[in-house]
C-alpha cells in the first residue's frame, strides 16, 4: 500500500512542453510512472518523450483516462491550469509551480473543496511512492520502498531526510511534499490521516518549519487520533525575526508561529523532535 499515488496513477503533465515540464516528464517516465498525457494549448497532436500532447485537459482525460495531474506551468498561468484540471475530471492535482499569489490560492482552494478535488502544493516537490510512481520533482534515486511515511512542508529538506533514510536502508511508503505557501491544498493533518489509515506505513516523519499554525494543529491531531509513532523536525530555530509590520499576524498566531512554539506543541503531543535532520534517521531506526 501507499497513499495518493501508486501503480494505478494515470498521470497528466500540464505544461509538458516547457523547460521544467519536459525535463521532469522524462524523469518521471524513466522512473516508471504511468505518464499517459501532456497538455499544452496549441500543441495538441505532438508527442514528447513518448507521451501524447493535447490542447485541453478535457480532451486528454477523454482520450487517456488520466486521473492525476502535475502542474509545471509558470505562476501566472498556474491558476488556470489548476481550474482546468479540476473541471476536466482530475481527482488529484499536484502543483509544483511556486510564486502563485496567495489570493489566487484562496479562491482555488475554495473551488476545489466544493468540487472535492485534492490539490497537493503549490510550491512543493510533489510526491513519490517508491518503485510505483513519481509525481513531481523528488529525485527517484534517493528513495526506496519501506515502512516510513514522510510528509514535509519543505522541498529540499525532504530530500535531505529521505536520502539519509535510504542511505541507512530504511525505506518509505510514500513521501509527500505539501509545500510551504501560506495557503495550500493539503495540510499535515490530511496526510497524517492517510498515513494512519495506510496499512503499510508503520511510522511517520513530519518535517515542518516556522510560520503559520499547521504544525500546532497537526500536534493536536496526533495527540488525539494517531496510533503510529511520529518523529518530527522543525526548521528555523535560528531564523531571525523578520521586520514585522502591524500587529495582525501576532494576534492570530501569538507564540505559535515560532520554532519553539511548534516544538513544544509537538513534544506535548508525544512526538519526538530531532535537533538536526541527520539525527532523525537514528530516531526511527
Amino acid at each position, binding site marked *: 500500500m501507499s497513499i495518493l499515488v501508486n501503480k494505478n496513477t494515470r498521470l497528466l503533465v500540464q505544461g509538458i512542453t516547457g*523547460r*521544467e515540464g519536459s525535463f*521532469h516528464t522524462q*524523469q518521471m517516465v524513466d522512473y516508471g510512472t504511468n505518464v499517459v498525457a501532456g497538455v499544452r494549448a496549441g500543441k495538441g497532436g505532438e508527442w514528447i518523450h513518448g507521451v501524447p500532447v493535447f490542447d485541453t485537459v478535457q480532451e486528454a482525460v477523454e482520450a487517456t483516462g488520466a486521473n492525476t495531474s502535475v502542474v509545471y506551468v509558470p*505562476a*501566472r498561468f498556474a491558476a488556470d491550469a489548476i481550474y482546468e484540471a479540476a473541471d476536466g475530471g482530475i481527482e488529484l492535482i499536484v502543483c*509544483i509551480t*511556486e510564486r502563485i*499569489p*496567495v*489570493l*489566487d490560492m*484562496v*479562491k482555488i*482552494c*475554495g473551488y476545489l473543496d466544493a468540487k472535492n478535488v485534492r490539490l497537493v502544493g503549490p510550491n512543493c516537490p510533489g510526491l513519490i511512492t517508491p518503485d510505483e510512481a513519481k509525481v513531481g*520533482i*523528488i*529525485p527517484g534515486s534517493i528513495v526506496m520502498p519501506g515502512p516510513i511515511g514522510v510528509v*514535509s*512542508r*519543505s*522541498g*529540499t*529538506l525532504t*530530500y*535531505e531526510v529521505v*536520502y*539519509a533514510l535510504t542511505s541507512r536502508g530504511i525505506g518509505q511508503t510514500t513521501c509527500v511534499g505539501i509545500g*510551504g505557501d*501560506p*495557503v495550500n491544498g493539503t495540510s499535515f493533518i490530511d496526510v497524517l490521516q492517510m498515513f494512519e489509515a495506510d496499512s503499510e506505513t508503520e511510522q511517520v516523519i513530519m*518535517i515542518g*518549519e*516556522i510560520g*503559520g*499554525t*499547521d504544525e500546532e*494543529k497537526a500536534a493536536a491531531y496526533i495527540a488525539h487520533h494517531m496510533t503510529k509513532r511520529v518523529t518530527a*523536525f522543525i*526548521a*528555523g*530555530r*535560528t*531564523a*531571525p525575526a523578520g*521586520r*514585522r*509590520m*502591524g*500587529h*495582525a*499576524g*501576532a*494576534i*492570530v498566531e501569538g507564540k505559535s508561529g515560532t520554532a519553539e512554539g511548534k516544538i513544544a506543541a509537538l513534544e506535548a503531543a508525544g512526538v519526538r523532535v530531532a*535537533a*538536526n*535532520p*541527520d539525527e532523525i534517521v537514528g530516531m526511527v531506526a
Partner: protein
Amino acid sequence: MNLHEYQAKRLFAKEGVPIPHGDVASTPTQARAVARDLGGKVVVKAQVLTGGRGKAGGVKLANTPDEAEALARRILGMNIKGLTVRKVLIDEQSPGIQQEIYLAVLIDRARRLPMMMASAAGGMDIEEVAETAPEKIFRVHIDPNIGLRQYQTTYLASGMDLPQNLWPDFHKVAAGLYAAFLKNDASLAEINPLVITGAGKLMALDGKMSIDDNALYRHADLEEMRDVDEEPPAEQEARLSGVNYIQLDGEIGCMVNGAGLAMATMDIIKLFGGEPANFLDIGGGAKSDQVATALRIILSDPRVKAVLFNVFGGIVRGDEVARGIIEALSQIDASVPMVVRLLGTNAEEGLRILEEANMATATTLSEAAQKAVQLAKGVQR
C-alpha cells in the same frame, strides 16, 4: 513588500476610507510648507518600514509651521531600528478623539480565507489585548466570492459596542479597507487606530499594508512604491535576480536551494558552534547565472570567512549549480575557503565539474557544516 504609512493611507482613501489631510515631506522646508497649508496644527510622523517609531521619538505634535519644520529636521535622518528616516508625513491633528479602534484584514492561513479583525481596544497595546482579553477582538472570515457583507460589519460593530449611528460609516470604512486589501493583493491591511474624532466621525489615523510579492507582477503601480532606500543594496540585487537573501551577523556564508533546507543549514551551523552570515535560497529552477549572482552577493559581505554550498537537486539541477559556482569564481577573486555539498538531480555531473576545479566537497549535512565551521575558524587564526 511593505508600504509606508502614507502609501497605505492613500490606498485606503482611494476606496473611501477617511484619512486626515496631509502630505509627505523629504526636507524640513517641505515639511514647513505642508504644515502651513494645513493651518499649522499638525503631527509629524517618521515614515520608516518598522514598528516602534513612536517610542523612538519619530512621532511628534507641532502647533505652528515653525515647530513642524524644527521637528522634521530632528526626525529626518533619525535611525530607527537600523533604518534611516528619509521622509516624514505631515498630517493635520485630529482633536478630541473619543475612541481608538483596531481594524485589520489579513489571510487566515488555517481557514484559508481573508479575515477581518476589529477591537474597541485599539491603539498601541492591541497585542496585549489579544493575549489577555481575546474576547475583545471580533473576527469575521470573508468569502472572496461574495465579498465582505454588511451583516458581517454589523456583527463587528455591534460586538465592539460602537454607537449605532456610526454603523453605516463603519461599514464603509471596513468595506474600503477590504477593497484596498483585495485590489492590491495585500497580505495585510491594518488601521490602528481608527478613531472616532471629536466631531463624531470615523478616521484612519495610521495605516499599514504588506503586499504579496508573488502578485506584484500584476501591480506595476505598487512596484513603483517600493522604497529601495530602505533595502540593503545586497538584498536589492538579490531580489532583482530572483534570489531570496537576508543578511545576518555571522561569518559563514550559506548558499542553499529551498527555504526549509536553508533554515536547517543555518540551524546546523549554529549547532556546531558557527554563526550563519546570511539566509540565502537560490529558489527552484535556479540557472547558473543566478548561482553566480548569489555567490557574488555572499562574498560582498566582508564578515564572511567561509562559504557553505548545500544544494539538493530536484527542480534545481546539480550541473547548473556547479557551472554557476565555477563561472562566479572565474570572475571574483575569492580568497575565502568553500565547502560544496551537492546531491539529487544531476548531482554526479555537478560533482565531476567541481572536482575538475578542485573544490572541496562533503557528503552529509553535518559533515559539510562541521567543515565550514572549522574553515571559518581557521581563517580567524
